[in-house]
């Protein structure tokens, strides 16, 4: 946190206060002369680097004016305001404009409250030293800017009130119409008024009544019969005198200075300080957004603001990242805790598995290999056939055809029927998946002559019929000694008989049954 100094400027005296949380300490006092300015310069040079300086003026030469300008925006508005300030003040370099809003009427005008220090020359020596010191000057402020906040902190409600306080510079009277200030003035009290509490109380009332009359005449306070609400911050010893007043035009509430300090947040103050500590404290801890000085004076303060913003951005990024990191760490701890539970569960399951595995016979290989080997081997056995059963069926067919003699047999195991058996594939005996057995039977009829074609054909057909009667057997093709089918060409030699033994072939198929 930067060091803060509030330079309280009264008529001919500048008092430097050091403001920290809850306390206002007196640093130094400087008179407006050569020696005082030199001391001020030396004082500023001793301050720590980065100290923020607030110049708080509590002077008589302050003017408040109501202005009405056309409702404009931007540069045009600024130009109109500058022109008005130049018309009204000889040197408007320390001026402040408050907007009071747009007036409702046929012409859309903006109502302004212009406040200005009418004697900027009295500021110049101090501002020159300040500018040269290289300190960050937050701005030039007037105590009236802080009056609405003090009134609020002292418990004043929504209505207008006159805040009266006895400051080092004199009696400060600020007419507050929440949320802003409407008028303020400083009355320097003569020494006779300060002689006793009774006389001071009289001075309080005198000045207040006088201001009420001014406000009425200036039309700031409309109802003459209405009592003016007055909030007086006064030393404790003035309370009896002020409360004894029976003035119908004033509704007075007295707040003793220690009580006011407590409400504003000041715990410690210099022993000889008056109500100005309230303004000094708030100027540092609740600095008004608007101020009187030109931007040229505040260059270093702008740098200070940028530094603070850059640091804040860095700190924010750091804090955000650390919060996110913290959240990650918490989540990771949660995950680690889950991992420990998972590890325990895994160990439990693994133990169970190990106990079960111990009961199993020694595995010669992986369970998968055992399963594949045994299952596929069983499938191999199911798909295996031997030739004997099929040949047995041929043998049985031969028994009903004693004249047929077997010449050759060819047996084959196939997963699918051969292409030449496609026509027979629709047979119910061969329907479904393989494997199939194909038998090619080569035979002859030794007791017959080739010229006995009718008898031969009948013999072979009888044999084929006998084969077809065998269970599951389907004849898928024949080659007769004398083929009379319409698909083949037929030729013969009736005259010559060579005595050849006629031979034939029959092809049968059946679904393999292991």
């Amino acid at each position: 946190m930067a060091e803060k100094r509030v330079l309280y400027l009264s008529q001919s005296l500048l008092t430097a206060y050091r403001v920290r949380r809850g306390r206002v300490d007196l640093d130094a006092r400087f008179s407006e002369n050569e020696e005082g300015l030199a001391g001020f310069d030396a004082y500023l040079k001793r301050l720590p680097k980065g100290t923020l300086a607030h110049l708080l003026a509590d002077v008589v030469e302050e003017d408040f004016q109501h202005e009405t300008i056309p409702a404009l925006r931007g540069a045009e508005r600024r130009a109109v305001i500058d022109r008005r300030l130049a018309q009204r003040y000889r040197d408007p370099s320390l001026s402040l404009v408050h907007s009071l809003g747009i007036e409702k009427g046929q012409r859309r005008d903006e109502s302004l409250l212009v406040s200005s220090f009418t004697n900027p020359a009295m500021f110049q020596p101090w501002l020159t030293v300040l500018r040269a010191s290289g300190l960050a000057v937050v701005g030039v402020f007037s105590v009236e800017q802080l009056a609405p906040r003090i009134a609020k902190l002292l418990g004043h409600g929504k209505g207008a009130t006159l805040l009266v306080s006895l400051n080092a510079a004199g009696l400060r009277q600020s007419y507050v119409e929440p949320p802003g200030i409407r008028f303020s003035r400083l009355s320097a009290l003569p020494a006779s008024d300060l002689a006793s509490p009774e006389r001071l109380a009289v001075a309080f009332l005198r000045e207040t009544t006088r201001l009420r009359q001014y406000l009425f005449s200036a039309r700031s306070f409309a109802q003459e019969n209405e009592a003016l609400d007055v909030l007086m911050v006064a030393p404790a010893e003035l309370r009896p005198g002020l409360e004894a007043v029976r003035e119908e035009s004033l509704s007075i509430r007295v707040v003793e200075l220690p009580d006011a300090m407590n409400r504003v947040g000041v715990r410690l103050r210099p022993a000889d300080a008056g109500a100005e500590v309230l303004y000094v404290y708030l100027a540092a801890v609740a600095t008004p957004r608007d101020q009187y000085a030109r931007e040229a004076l505040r260059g270093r303060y702008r740098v200070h603001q940028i530094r603070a913003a850059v640091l804040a951005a860095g700190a924010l990024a750091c804090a955000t990242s650390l919060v996110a990191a913290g959240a990650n760490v918490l989540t990771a701890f949660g995950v680690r805790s889950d991992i420990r539970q998972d590890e325990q569960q895994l160990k439990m399951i693994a133990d169970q598995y190990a106990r079960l595995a111990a009961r199993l016979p020694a595995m010669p290989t992986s369970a998968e290999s055992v399963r594949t080997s045994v299952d596929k081997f069983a499938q191999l056995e199911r798909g295996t056939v031997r030739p004997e059963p099929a040949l047995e069926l041929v043998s049985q067919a031969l028994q009903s055809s004693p004249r047929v003699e077997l010449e050759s047999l060819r047996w084959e195991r196939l997963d699918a029927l051969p292409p030449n058996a496609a026509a027979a594939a629709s047979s119910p005996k061969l329907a479904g998946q393989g494997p199939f057995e194909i038998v090619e039977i080569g035979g002859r009829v030794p007791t017959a002559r080739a010229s006995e074609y009718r008898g031969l054909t009948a013999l072979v057909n009888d044999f084929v019929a006998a084969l077809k009667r065998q269970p599951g057997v389907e004849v898928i093709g024949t080659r007769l000694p004398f083929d009379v089918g319409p698909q083949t060409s037929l030729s013969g030699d009736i005259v010559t008989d060579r005595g050849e033994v006629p031979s034939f072939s029959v092809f049968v198929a059946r679904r393999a049954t292991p």
Partner: protein
Amino acid sequence: MTVEKEALKRLVAPTLTAIGLAAFGIAAWLGSQEWLDKARIEQQALRGERAGVQGKLARATEEEREIRDKVASYNRLVERGLIGDERRLDWVDAIAAIKANRKLFEVKYAIEPQRPLDLAGVKGAGAVEFLASRMRLEMPLLHEGDLFVFLDDLERNLSAYVLVRSCAIQRTDKAGAERGAGPQLKADCNVDLVTVRDKQRKTEGKQG
């Protein structure tokens, strides 16, 4: 030095500090994120492992009896020499012994190189491979029963599974008195000698 330069100079330190703070925060966040990611990956792996073991346990419980039966069958196949390397020398010895025992006329055989078994529905999987060596047999027979007895003996005595693919039996061209004495038939068969190769088997058999 102009005011602007001085102002810029005054901004260097806070800017560096801000960058440092942000970098520290981001580094801390990245570090924590990495730690968290690592923990999550570890957790995921552990849960995968747990699910695996849980699955194995469930399967093992369900299949305990099946595994017992199958291990016994597997061991029988190993004992028969059907699982493991081919033992061609044993095969040759066995064929010679069968011929001698059965007093067969002659047995000619030719064993082709081993290759994957070509049989519908019988394919290896994983580490298990079904392999076959095709053997062509030519033998004269007194009668067809000699062939079937020979095939039975092969099945019983060979350390391989015998899968008969085809057999052709033909009468020999002998006439008259010759017919009664020597072989009457000639057989020509193709037989697959099937073995199983299991790459995960703990003790592989040796060539016999």
